């Protein structure tokens, strides 16, 4: 058994947890380690799980009210005085609504503000399109100085949070709302900018970001029985991209499928394909939202409807294999 993977991963007993809970715990731990950590929130403490930090360190928890733009500017001001601010809200509002403040106050000033965007993706569910951030990766990956992280599970989210607290740069941490399978273990390594091959293979590369890494692994297992060998990469860092791991994988397999809960345009898949177009062009398919807004529904129903699931990933793999 691969020590990087949850031993229960391929069983029905795989544990579920929300990535935002991982960050909630990560913030408490980061707060213990470093007194300069402060957390800002815009009237969404419980949903973003920053209430855990607020309970432990009330004097370092800053309630901004429903004012995400000011929250980002406040964080930039705190950061330039040596604080390490985490700003937390739903991704549609932060980095959505306050993108200009992120761009100019945080990234251009180059101060180490950490943006926690929860409720990204269509798996937000019943709240509907207004609350489903499907554009945030695109918004963030074009900003100089900003690191963009998409943890695949709650354990990785905690590690990403702690890594973000340490790195002296602005970081965007993208999280989804529902409980999703635990893919990794507490001891699995996490390093910003270092993608992980979670399942080695030779026929096709699947480069997935976020909880859909799980679906990708399930498809790889299924296709093994059809003698198709799929390499699955957990691409948790969209910026800076791990060029080396991705290029060497597609050199071996000769084709690629990218997977994410985001618009196809401008997302993690786009980032990977732009890089490959310049370095090692190969046939590729992208699984993501097809230039559409989301809608209300159960998370599972919505993911299935838009093909952000095992069957969608499998279809894309079979399609790209034919194009090799």
């Amino acid at each position, binding site marked *: 058994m691969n020590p990087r993977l949850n031993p229960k991963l391929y069983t029905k007993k795989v544990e579920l947890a929300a990535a935002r809970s991982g960050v909630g715990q990560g913030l408490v731990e980061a707060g213990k380690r470093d007194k300069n950590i402060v957390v800002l929130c815009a*009237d969404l403490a419980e*949903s973003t799980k920053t209430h855990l930090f607020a309970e432990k360190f009330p004097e370092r928890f800053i*309630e901004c*009210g*429903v*004012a995400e733009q000011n929250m980002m500017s406040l964080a930039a001001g705190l950061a330039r005085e040596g604080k390490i601010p985490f700003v937390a809200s739903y991704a549609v509002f932060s980095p959505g609504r306050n993108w200009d403040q992120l761009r100019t106050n945080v990234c251009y000033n180059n101060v180490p503000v950490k943006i926690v965007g929860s409720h990204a993706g269509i798996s937000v569910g019943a*709240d509907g399109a*207004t*609350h489903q951030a499907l554009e945030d990766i695109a918004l963030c990956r074009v900003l100089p100085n900003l690191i963009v992280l998409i943890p695949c599970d709650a354990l990785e989210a905690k590690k990403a949070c702690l890594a973000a607290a340490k790195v002296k740069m602005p970081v965007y941490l993208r999280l989804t709302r529902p409980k999703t399978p635990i893919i990794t273990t507490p001891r699995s390594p996490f390093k910003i900018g270092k993608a992980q091959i979670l399942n080695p293979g030779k026929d096709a590369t699947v480069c997935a970001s976020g909880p859909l890494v799980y679906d990708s692994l399930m498809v790889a297992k299924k296709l093994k029985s059809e003698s198709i060998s799929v390499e699955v990469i957990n691409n948790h860092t969209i910026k800076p991209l791990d060029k080396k791991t991705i290029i060497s994988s597609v050199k071996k397999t000769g084709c690629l499928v990218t997977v994410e809960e985001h618009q196809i345009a401008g997302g993690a898949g786009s980032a990977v394909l732009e890089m490959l177009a310049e370095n090692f062009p190969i046939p590729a398919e992208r699984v993501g939202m097809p230039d559409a807004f989301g809608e209300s*529904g159960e998370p599972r129903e919505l993911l299935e409807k838009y093909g952000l699931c095992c069957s969608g990933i499998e279809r894309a793999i079979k399609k790209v294999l034919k194009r090799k």
Partner: protein
Amino acid sequence: MASKELRKKANLIRQDIINMVAAAGSGHPAGALGMADIFAALYFKIAKINPKRPNWPDRDRIFLSNGHICPVLYATLARRGYFKTEELATLRRLGSRLQGHPHRTALPGVENTSGPLGQGLGQACGSALAARLNNKKYHVYCVMSDGEQDCGSTWEAAMFAGKNRLSNITAIMDRNNIQIDGYTEDVMPLEPLRQKYESFNWRVIEVDGHNLDEFIGAANRARKIEEKPVMIIAHTVPGKGVSFMEYDYRWHGKAPNGKEAKKALKGLNAIMDKLK
């Protein structure tokens, strides 16, 4: 419609809200229940609208800025005849026209897409300005919340309306003193709201949001004021009509379970009986 009849409508709307949110298993009951009286008055008495012609060019516009209270909007639209009440049960389901937050193109009677707070008043200002440019006589209503007063964009719109003397706007603020993280005055103190709007060149009228005669009187007066936009600050009780939800911010965005819904409906029915 006499105010007693309106109170019955509001009661039915409250029952719809409980049924819808309970069936969906998620949604926002507190603000929706608190605004049922005002929605009944707006849609059944005050606004010039025609459910048979939802896009009638001369209709009054009713913008909803705080989209999360949409169960009250949907229930009111259905009771007013925009669509069948049976459809209310589809709230938040896949394929439903009753999206978790209202979507303009999904459902007749919905004037604007909302959910992200602080954007209704700006759209209402645009609509009011267009009425002036197009020589139209329709009136523009904008329902908004107190939590939204935290948003800078609300004040950008307020300043614009004041500058341009958009007297064809009546904004109605649900002053229920709650938001998600607690009471408004703890999360981000808002008072004095009256003076804030007055200093932005608005006329302010404060009413008890559950006293229909008072609200209707204020709305009629607001239509006649010709030199300024009007803000009606409606003092309401979040969760109004459901004893265990009243005044409790924890019911901002939580659905009642089956047992709680039953209890809520029982209480609302008892209130209805007294109206007969």
